[in-house]
């Protein structure tokens, strides 16, 4: 690992170059409060989720492959290394990257970097993040982010995409809402970038804003509806429930797994309670579907009968015959929003491949669901999922054997 000497040389140089300007820029290198605030903000923004290669031991040094609908992008090195990181960037260039979607020399960033969301942050917050990033160990790690196939690798094409899907600008508080709501909106729509996973996308990969937060399928999972829909979203959850879920991975209604487990483990479980409640308050006010559903599939239907018997033999040992699960261990299926998502991708994933639930300090047990792909055929998976989606007050579209077969093949290809 390179020593810090060249780094301090660069900082020193910029200090010399802009003698009084360092403080005027808003970054005081001795302002530990600002640095700590910046660190906290990077947790909310979950920079590490993309910019840290797991197991590398080098935080934020980039190189991690990010899946996009268009191909793979490698996250750049955002340590202060002057040649391979962002150490030589000016603060304005850094702020532009976060809020305008432009890199050094004005080149367009791909929206895998969620500038469409980060644009909302205040200048002060952006500078705080910069202040913190200036303090992480500089790592020399050259990364060529652009791995997309032609013609997508032509960054200039992003100009058109931005016209369609990017509305730059700092968050504007809503004067008719509480301070808590506004804080939650600022976080969820900004650094928290919830919609990046939870909002459905157009063919070009932009947000379908009319269906904000109603769920989106990515990387073999379905990021659930988190609107106020009382059946499929978090409408039936209290603010406490939502905050507890983000903090511990557990609520009365759900236990986090899959991609959200990573987010909770790395990001939200390290946020303070006030911010989590603010996000919860905001989400509960987001419009969604009204919770009505078609009538549940009747129990006499043959898939339901098969599903009931499979459930009794393979599922009730943990999830219990009444679907209520076991608090803190096996999530309830009865009245579960996750079970009733219109898109059953996550359910098929969990049944076919199993899943480990998140471990947090407050809730370390991290029980795992075993895989059933070896035992259950496509029609059997479809039957048991149809059964749980339409029992105990649940109502959701039946799952077909075809869907299960496609999911099985897709998951195998993903090696997951």
């Amino acid at each position, binding site marked *: 690992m390179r020593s810090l000497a060249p780094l301090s040389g660069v900082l020193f140089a910029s200090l010399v170059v802009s003698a009084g300007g360092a403080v005027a820029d808003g970054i005081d290198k001795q302002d530990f409060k600002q640095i700590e605030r910046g660190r906290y903000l990077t947790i909310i923004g979950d920079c590490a989720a993309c910019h840290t290669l797991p197991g590398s031991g080098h935080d934020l040094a980039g190189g991690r492959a990010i899946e996009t609908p268009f191909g793979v992008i490698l996250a750049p090195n955002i340590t202060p290394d002057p040649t391979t990181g962002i150490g030589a960037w000016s603060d304005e260039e850094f702020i532009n990257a976060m809020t305008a979607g432009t890199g050094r020399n004005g080149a367009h960033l791909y929206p895998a970097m969620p500038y469409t969301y980060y644009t909302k942050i205040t200048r002060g917050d952006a500078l705080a993040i910069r202040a913190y990033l200036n303090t992480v160990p500089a790592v020399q790690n050259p990364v060529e982010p652009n791995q997309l196939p032609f013609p997508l690798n032509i960054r200039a094409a992003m100009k058109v995409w931005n016209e369609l899907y990017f509305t730059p600008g700092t968050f504007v508080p809503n004067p008719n809402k509480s301070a808590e709501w506004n804080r939650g909106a600022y976080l969820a729509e900004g650094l928290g970038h919830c919609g990046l996973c939870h909002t459905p996308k157009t063919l070009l990969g932009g947000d379908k804003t009319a269906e904000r937060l109603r769920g989106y399928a990515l990387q073999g999972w379905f990021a659930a509806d988190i609107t106020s829909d009382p059946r499929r979203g978090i409408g039936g959850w209290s603010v406490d429930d939502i905050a507890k879920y983000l903090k511990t991975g557990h609520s009365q209604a759900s236990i986090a797994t899959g991609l959200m487990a990573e987010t909770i483990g790395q990001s939200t479980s390290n946020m303070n309670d006030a911010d989590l409640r603010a996000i919860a308050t905001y989400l509960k006010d987001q419009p969604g579907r009204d919770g009505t559903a078609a009538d549940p599939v009747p129990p006499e239907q043959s898939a339901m*009968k098969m599903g009931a018997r499979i459930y009794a033999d393979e599922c009730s040992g943990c999830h219990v015959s009444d679907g209520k699960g076991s608090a803190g261990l096996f999530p309830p299926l009865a009245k579960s929003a996750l079970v009733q998502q219109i898109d059953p991708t996550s359910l098929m994933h969990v049944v076919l*491949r199993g899943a480990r639930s998140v471990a947090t300090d407050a809730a370390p047990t991290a029980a*795992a669901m075993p*895989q059933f792909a070896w035992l259950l055929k496509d029609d059997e998976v479809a039957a048991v999922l149809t059964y749980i989606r339409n029992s105990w007050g649940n109502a959701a579209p039946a799952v077909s054997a075809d869907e299960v077969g496609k999911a099985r093949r897709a998951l195998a290809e993903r090696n997951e």
Partner: protein
Amino acid sequence: MHRINRRQLLPSSALALLMVSPAARATIIKGGLPWRPGSADPPTVVTPGGWHYFTSQEAATVEAFVDRLIPPDPQTPGGKDCGCAVFIDRQLAGPYGRAESMYMMGPFQPGTKQQGPQSPLTPAQQYRKALAALDAACRSKYGGKGFADLSDQQKDEVIEGLEHDAFKLDGFDGQSFFHTILTDTRNGFLADPIYGGNKDMAAWKMIGFPGTHYDYRDWIDRHNQTVTLPTVSIYSHPSWSQQ
């Protein structure tokens, strides 16, 4: 949507990275409970048809033998139709037959009964030897007929003789073989059908064992009542598709 071959992507978890470390097979675990999606070690389900270890002659002998140890009756098939010989065949063809889990280092010397079996022969080798000796002994006593060709009464005579160490086999302890094949036959009869025996869970249905159900919370308080759950096994659940 661009289809990603996940193998091209780096592992998305520090733990997974450590577990697939090529350095040494000693697995190093830290940072949390390991997880590999799809991880499981399910049993290999025996597929019927053919013999994987026995010659057709040996198979005929064993089928005849198991059908006398557990004869058919109107309600429940016997050892042969329950697949006990198939069970034994598949076991002998696999790690059990090769004594893979046993301590097979020498020196080999006979000991007391309390010291347990000390044979240098694997179970598969023992069967081969014993079956040959059995047939030879039968031919000698019953005018050239091997065990499989004897009448039921004669077969029973032979088995009783083995059981009481009265019917001697040349070069093999017949009484010991009797105990081995009796144990293996019972195992085939009553083990999960995935192993080739207990066909259609016939033995479980006979005794009233409902199988591999896991959740009896609704039954623990129902003392002295017949459990009415359908019989299920690890891989076979006929009740699932009944209407």
